[in-house]
């Protein structure tokens, strides 16, 4: 099956939030009210009932006033930290088309995926004790529709298609931007996590942090250590302990009283 992807050309994003509404509506989310935080941003952060957030960042870049807007949601990593961290088999699955999807019947709400995610995306609902995030509208994609955010985007900032095609388009667009004088333009798609199926085109790819994106996303090393060497260490301790006890018993048996003689 072809790997699907979403391309976000941030140079075309006007922060209209249509994608936010489309996401809310398609996923039948409960609407909440925002708290004022000295910004145009809808919420300070993603929420269990809010999976698609445009981050608004005011910045001065090379002396010029900028107001960067970039949509933030699950990145659908090839090497997904959430899956790595998840203890419950089948709670998070990577579909054949590359979508990382949650199956909430199997979710136990431990929240390890939140910690495992290099992009800090999943959110635990205190109400349902389950974790939520963007599914790239796997239900729509399964029947041949594009995700809701892409359907609604008015400026074609969002595109949906095969990852190979979109990666090509993204690189072409970055080249165009470079030709237009944005020498730092580039593509952001998380090579550190095996590539993300959400691909960004950034004017200032040298500083993704100004868009609210992590600089060089990797699965956190503590998670890797926990799921790698530590597991072997633990196995060695448990199995080794039991084995040693058995061998000890066979060789020495129990202590006798008065053996001190």
């Amino acid at each position, binding site marked *: 099956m072809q790997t699907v992807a979403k391309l976000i050309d941030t140079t075309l994003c006007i922060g209209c939030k249509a994608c936010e509404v489309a996401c809310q509506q398609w996923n039948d989310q409960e609407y909440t009210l925002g708290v004022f935080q000295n910004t145009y941003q809808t919420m300070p952060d993603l929420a269990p009932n809010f999976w698609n957030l445009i981050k608004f960042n005011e910045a001065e870049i090379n002396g010029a006033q900028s107001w960067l807007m970039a949509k933030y949601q699950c990145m659908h990593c090839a090497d997904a930290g959430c899956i790595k*961290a998840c*203890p*419950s*088999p089948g709670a998070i699955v990577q579909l054949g088309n590359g979508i990382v999807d949650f199956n909430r019947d*199997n979710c*136990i*709400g*431990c*929240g*390890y995926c*939140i*910690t*495992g995610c290099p992009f*800090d995306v999943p*959110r*635990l609902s*205190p109400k349902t*004790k389950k974790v939520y995030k963007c599914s790239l509208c796997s239900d729509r994609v399964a029947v041949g529709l594009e995700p809701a955010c892409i359907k609604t985007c008015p400026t074609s900032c969002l595109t949906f298609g095969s990852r190979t095609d979109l990666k090509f388009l993204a690189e072409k667009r970055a080249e165009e931007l470079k030709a237009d004088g944005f020498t730092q333009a580039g593509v952001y798609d998380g090579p550190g996590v095996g590539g993300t199926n959400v691909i960004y085109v950034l004017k200032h790819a040298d500083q993704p942090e100004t868009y609210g994106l992590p600089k060089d996303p990797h699965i*956190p090393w*503590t*998670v890797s*250590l*926990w799921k790698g060497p*530590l*597991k072997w*260490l*633990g196995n060695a*301790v*448990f199995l080794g*302990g*039991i084995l040693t*006890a058995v061998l*000890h*018993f066979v060789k*020495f*048996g*129990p*202590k*006798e*009283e*008065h*053996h*001190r*003689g």
Partner: protein
Amino acid sequence: MDSRLERFTVPERVTHWLVAICYVYAGLSGLALWSRAMWWLAPVMGGGENLRGWHPIAGVIFALLLAMQFRRWAAQMKLDADDRKWLAMSGRYAMHDEHGVPESGRFNAGQKMLFWLQSTSAIVLFATGAVLWFPEVMPRGLRLISILVHPLAAVASMGGIIVHIYMTTVVVQGALHAMTRGYVTEGWAKSHHAKWFRQVTRQ
């Protein structure tokens, strides 16, 4: 012959076994969370969702009871010169050749070490567990440390517990009885905790 000595009081025994129950639940459910290879434990432990809910609760009860046990025993668990010598010669103790191995008080140096290991790891487990319990409110940096340190502490703790269980159920006959019924024979005391035997029989 009336040679029975009281080894553990009723409160000591009750606390120990409650601690043990919590430990076993937290440990086994923890194992399910630790590795997908151990996920088969999840249904036994009440199913994934309950397990996620109960594991930290068991942990908290465990920590509270352990704190009581700590208060009760901490003073008795200080290592003295004999204990240090004992530890140096613990290999001989393990091979049942106790010639030259110093006599033990109420607790031998191995038991004392277990006490300190369990107390320390419990503190670590409690602190990191609290962080992992509420991932939605705890800072990411703390969660990233805890997700590694919590299982690390658990491994250390369970390594010690394997030894503890083996020693008390298989190697030192009568030890389990001491913790269940509370008394031991004079002979048992003499041979395993001679210093203690003298202390309690001095009068």
